[in-house]
């Protein structure tokens, strides 16, 4: 059976975290959506917290330690991403941003992304639109139109309102999977001939 790899990047800090809870629900919804279309799913879950030290090391040394390198390769090799950040000081968290800072700025080009965030109050819900969406637009990823924001109340009295948003976003992500991800030219496989460098 045809299988899609969905990398889920969640940057919650506590265990359990509401970001992880949202990430799991989004991943399940995407799996259901894909299976409804006869496609298998492999979910690769990445808790950014587990790599906090390695991310700092990468920023300071300029290269990812071996374990982080594997994780980054999982993300860049996935067919689509689900990303979830807690809202800190009116934006994504610093740790969330660090994960995407150490990726090559072309690494997510053309990749469908489902944007999601959590927060204490629904007053922060536009964080998806003014913080996450521009970040992924810069990275030339393809964020789907519906982002999912979950405030504390969405886990209680408003839970019924959250479910359709999750289903809507999951459907959009799966529809976006038909996009061909452009493959990057490898400058080591095909180096620019020196005469071209001299004449450029």
């Amino acid at each position, binding site marked *: 059976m045809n299988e899609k790899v969905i990398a889920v990047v969640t940057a919650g800090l506590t265990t359990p975290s509401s970001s992880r809870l949202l990430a799991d629900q989004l991943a399940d919804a995407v799996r259901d959506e894909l299976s409804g279309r006869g496609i298998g799913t492999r979910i690769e879950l990445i808790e950014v917290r587990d790599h906090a030290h390695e991310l700092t090391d990468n920023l*300071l040394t300029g290269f990812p330690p071996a374990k982080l390198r594997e994780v980054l390769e999982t993300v860049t090799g996935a067919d689509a991403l689900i990303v979830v950040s807690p809202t800190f000081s009116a934006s994504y968290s610093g740790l969330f941003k660090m994960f995407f800072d150490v990726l090559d700025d072309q690494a997510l080009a053309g990749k469908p992304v489902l944007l999601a965030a959590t927060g204490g109050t629904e007053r922060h819900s536009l964080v998806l639109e003014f913080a996450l969406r521009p970040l992924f637009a810069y990275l030339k990823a393809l964020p789907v139109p519906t982002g999912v924001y979950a405030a504390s109340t969405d886990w209680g009295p408003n839970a019924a309102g959250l479910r359709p948003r999750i289903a809507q976003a999951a459907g959009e992500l799966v529809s976006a999977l038909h996009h061909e991800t452009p493959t990057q030219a490898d400058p080591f496989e095909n180096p620019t*001939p020196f005469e071209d460098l001299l004449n450029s």
Partner: protein
Amino acid sequence: MQFGVFSVGDVTTDPTTGTTVSEGERIKAMVRIALKAEEVGLDVFAQGEHHNPPFVPSSPTTQLGFIAARTSKIILSTSTTLITTNDPVKIAEDYAMLQHLADGRVDLMMGRGNTGPVYPWFGQDIRNGIQLAVENYALLRRLWREDVVDWEGKFRTPLQGFTSTPRPLDDVPPFVWHGSIRSPEIAEQAAYYGDGFFHNNIFWPMSHTKRMIELYRTRFEHYGHGAADQAIVGLGGQVFMRKNSQDAVREFRPYFDNAPVYGHGPSLEDFSRETPLTVGSPQEVIERTLSFRESVGDYQRQLFLMDHAGLPLKTVLEQLDILGEEVVPVLRKEFAALKPAHVPDAPTHASLKAAAERARDLETIEEPIR
């Protein structure tokens, strides 16, 4: 195979004592290190060029000229000469001059410099780094090889009927290495000209080094300079040694933890695993260094970084004693035993001069036939 040291020339506070040497003390310490390198039998002393604190060596040929006067065997080199922000005319002049003073004991390593703010101080822009390296070096080669040069390019005022003086010693330009950590364009440049390629190799996983050297070797062969395994490769390395491994780790850790570049990041153990950094006994350094060959093939030059992060001069000189007495003699023997006969040594002034004379003789013999 050549062995040597390369110095960045940083003034860093010794984290164990809080002492910071003066610029003058650091400059004199670098000289002392170069003299010691010759004394313990190393082949190469290379120094960096920097135009911003906390680094002192802004004027490498002044320093190398001073060292040349006080040494007789060691090759003086750079790590690196900034081909982007220096005027190639001045590089041509300075290093030809140094060649004469040092009786040919000179080669250079070209580098771009990765400090953004330095470029505009010299009227340049870091975004043009590759183009600057390509154009400036093309001019530099002509200045050393043609007595009168007419030239026009993008980055420098044109030259009309210009002669760079003095002419290179014996009309043999210094051998050039190109250093780059991850720009395939620079490996390509080195391969195109049949020049040497040096990978700094420290601070990075060996996989980066391997990839760059492989590209350089393949393209060296592509451009017809010889087989891939005959390309001229140099590597860096970073070591700290004591008789007992644990003593080396204990003594070096505070320097590691507070070092410029990687300090306050990974642990010494992680960094030693991920990069070629080796802190331990001389035997461990020998084994690690020999393992580089397995990644990049037989190579011609191995330089060690010994004097950064605030290590006191006394310690650095002790390290050089260990390197010269216990490590390099073993490495020389082991590497030589492994190297096939068709793999050349790194070019020196003497070998380049002999090659030029052979080429001239061939021309004279062929002339009557034409």
